[in-house]
Every structure is written in C-alpha cells, then in structure tokens.
C-alpha cells in the first residue's frame, strides 16, 4: 500500500479503522501460520477425519480465500484459526502467538447474519464491545460510522426482523468490524444473498479490505467470488480436506466488477474449476 493510497483513504468512510499492514513481507512472526494442522472429529470407531495436515501462511493484510467442495472442512478450518476448536495435531500461530483459545482480535461473519433478535441494530453491532466489557461510549461513533458505510444509516433502532437478509448481513459485517480487529474471518458470508446484492457486497468488501488493510480469511464455494476478492486462493480437496493448490491472483488491489472480464480472471476461474470438475463434485 503506497502513501498516496493511504492519504486517499482518509476521505473514505472507513478511515476510522486502523490501517494494519504497510507492506506484505512474508514472515513467520506476523500473519497467520498453520503447521501440520489436522482435525479429526469423534473418538474410537466413530472417527471422522475432517482435515488432513495443512501447512500454509496468511500474510498480514492479505485477502485469503478458501474454496472447496461442500463438507471438505472449510468451516472447521475457520473455527480452528479463530481458536473455537482445538486442532487434533499441529499448531496455529497468529502473529507468533500460539492459538489455544479464542484470541479476540478477530471478527467473524457467518453465512447467517446471526443477529440477536432482542437487540436493535446498533446494540447488535456493539455486541463485541459488551462481550469484551469495553466502554460502549467510546465505540458508539465507530458503530454509527460503520453502519453509514454499509448504507444502514437510520436503521440503528430497528430490530433485526425488520431488515432484509442483505441488510442483516451488512449489520453483521459492522459487528465484526466494530472492535477494529486485525483479522476478519468470513464463512460463506454472502451465500444466503441474491446474486445482485452479492456482487454489490463483494465490491464493498473489496473496498473495505483495501482501505483498512485488514487480513481477511474468506470461505466460499463460488469460484468467481473467490477470484474477484482474493490476493490468494486456496483450493481444497474433498474430505478429508487438504490443499489442492494455492493461486496468486495478479489482478491488483483496485478491483471493480470490470475485473471479471479480465482474461487473467476468466483463466484463473477456469483453472480452479478444473480441480473440481475432474472429480465432478462441484456443489
């Protein structure tokens, strides 16, 4: 990220979020590092291996997207990295610290918005603040700015059921960002949205990532979405999930929907698709 880029970003509505990475130099001490991480559910005869031993590294400020067939352990991977599950073998390090429990400096977005139905939108966005027992007043401004950024200004006092699915999901993204975490993890965040809203959200998310430089780990089963958003795409194999390939996406950081007609884009989508077509298990 250049200096020009940063000064420009001050005018953006997301300028209140800290810029995490200045450059992305791969280093073991920063970013997310997985070494030999595997996960097996159950014990005894009922054992199901969900993930084969995985080794990969996510740099600070990288937009890292995981694609794979359904049931390949994508969501398990996300829970392992966020510390909600303990790996059966191997170690996960975030910024050089071993992950043994939820570490807090992470925002999570699931496929369902999972807003608390008894809290209005602003209180839902402030939920991480309540959970961490931080002073609400300090974060109120940011919560409002985030809602403005995703176009939910004026909906602060509404209850979740009064909003459409897409609006709820946008509120849940605000919730994941309100405590300004370094890492954002998204598990098929736009899976439940219609195609048009989904494209708009993709552009929006791409812009948020560009202006804040957050590390984003996103899980999807849409190959075009993966290529459009990612700096790197990890392709997973069928269960037990392993790494089929990791692709760099040389499309630059500034992306509009025009990028989808770029030959690099179409070529990469076709190449990734081939991984699944050979097994004919594309979902």
């Amino acid at each position, binding site marked *: 990220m250049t200096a020009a880029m940063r000064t420009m970003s001050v005018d953006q509505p997301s300028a209140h979020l800290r810029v995490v990475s200045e450059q992305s130099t791969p280093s073991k001490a920063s970013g997310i590092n997985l070494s030999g991480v595997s996960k097996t559910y159950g014990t005894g005869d009922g054992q199901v291996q969900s993930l084969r031993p995985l080794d990969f590294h996510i740099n600070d400020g990288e937009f890292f997207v995981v694609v794979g067939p359904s049931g390949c352990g994508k969501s398990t991977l996300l829970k392992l990295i966020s510390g909600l599950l303990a790996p059966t073998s191997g170690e996960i390090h975030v910024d050089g610290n071993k992950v043994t429990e939820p570490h*807090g400096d992470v925002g999570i977005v699931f496929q369902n918005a999972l807003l608390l139905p008894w809290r209005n939108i602003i209180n839902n966005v402030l939920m991480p603040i309540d*959970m*961490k027992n931080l002073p609400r007043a300090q974060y109120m401004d940011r919560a409002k700015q985030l809602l403005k950024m995703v176009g939910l200004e004026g909906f602060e006092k509404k209850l979740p059921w009064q909003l459409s699915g897409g609006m709820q999901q946008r509120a849940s993204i605000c919730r994941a960002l309100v405590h300004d975490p370094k890492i954002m993890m998204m598990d098929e965040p736009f899976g439940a949205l219609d195609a048009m809203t989904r494209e708009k959200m993709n552009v929006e998310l791409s812009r948020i990532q560009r202006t804040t430089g957050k590390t984003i780990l996103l899980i999807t089963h849409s190959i075009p979405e993966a290529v459009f958003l990612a700096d790197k795409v990890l392709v997973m194999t069928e269960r037990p999930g392993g790494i089929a390939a990791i692709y760099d996406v040389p499309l630059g950081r500034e992306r509009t929907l025009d990028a989808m007609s770029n030959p690099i884009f179409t070529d990469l989508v076709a190449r990734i698709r081939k991984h699944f077509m050979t097994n004919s298990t594309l979902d």
Partner: protein
Amino acid sequence: MSEKKAPGSVSKLLNASWLRPFLLLVMIVVGWDLAIRIFNIPAYQIPAPGDVVKVLYTDWPELLSQSWPTTYATLLGFLASAVFGIPIAMLIAGSRTVESYVYPLLVFSQSIPKVAIAPLFVVWFGFGIVPKIIAAFLLGFFPVVVSAVQGFKSVDPDMVDLARAMKGSRLRVFCAVNLPHALPAIFSGLKVSVTLAVVGAVVGEFVGSNSGIGYVLQRSIGTFDLPTMFAALVILALLGVILFWLVDRIERFAIPWHVSQRADVFIGS
C-alpha cells in the same frame, strides 16, 4: 356484506377479541341451562346455572376468603417451580453428565401420581399451607424444566461460537445469548405450570386442609351441595385464568421482540 351503515361501536364491540371467549361462555351456559330443562336432569346430578350464580352471589364473602389460601399456595408453589426448575434446566442443558443422571429420574418421578403421595406431605408437614405448596410445586415443576431445557438447547451453536470468539466470559455469553434465547420457551413452560399449580394446590387441600377452595369443594361434595361445588369450580377456573393472564403480561413485557408478540393478538385467556 352491505352493512356499511351499521352502528360502528356495537359491531366493533362484538368483534373485539377479548369479548369472544365471553360470548362462547354465554353460549355454553345457555346450552347447559337448556339441556337441564330439556332432558329433565335432577338438581342433585347437575345444578342449574342460575343456582350456581345464586350461590356465587350469596356466599361470595365466604368463597373469596377461602380462595386466598388457595391463591397463596398456588403462587408459592409456582414460584418454587420457577426458582428450582429454571436452574435445573440450565444444568441439564449445559452438561451431558447432569442430563444423563437427572433427566431420566425426573421423567420417572413424573409418573408417580401426586394425588397418591399428597397424604404423605400431610403426615410430614401437618395441616398447614406447606403440603399444598409442595403439591403445587410438584405439578408445576416438570413443564418448566422440560420447556426450559428445550429453550436452552435450541440456541444456535454458531451464535454461541460467535460470542465466544468475541472473548466473552462464560457467564457473559450465557446472559447475552443463551438466557434471552431460552426465555420464550421458559415462558411457555411457566404458563402451563401456573395452571397446573392451581390443580396441585387443590389436590393438597383435598387430602388434608381446613381452608381453601379445595376444602370447600370436598365439603360440598360430602353434603351433596352441588351448586356450591360448581361455584367453587368457577372460582378455581377464574383463579387459573387470572394467573395465566398475569404470566402472559409479564411475558409480553420480558420478550417484546419475540415472534409471538409482534402482532397484537389476544392470547390472554
């Protein structure tokens, strides 16, 4: 319908949802009275509604004073079933070990007829209010536990994960996510429980008491005073309705966000 010019206030009144149960009640009473006249049912088998109303009117002070002990016993038994039932449901839903030990036993204990063991409480605690409270508690306890367990268990695990990933302590996650989520189920259990607690209190009064509506019931059966007995039943039904309505009001106040509370429908009785 071409009743555009119909007097608005009367038709509105007839359509008011709170009036509907009363209209049905009036129809039932009329049917009751007609049945007695048509089939010539003697008064020692079923009293006429008019006689019951007469007793309700003349004996009102006596009936009212007798309904207080029943109300106290019901309320205390109901509160006890909430105070013990909800935490036990929390434990059962929270730990498989507790569930495997406690839940089957709890179901087992429900198959014991309370009426059969109620005299035991009289032996243990005498003729005071305590046996009645225990009987009310025993009947009201089970629905609270079953509903609350279901409520606590139906929390979306992703929602709990999300709160845990925010580094919330167990207690904080519980108070912010699990408990509010379980409230609608808990309230439906409480509503069943409060009506059963009335039954429990009456059972307690049946087996050994010298006060309360249950006592009035038993005494009037003994003397074949059927109008008084039916009047006592009316009072019990009223007590049940009022207590149910109170819990319903509290529910609306506690969970205004819930689906069941969104439309302004009358659930009161």
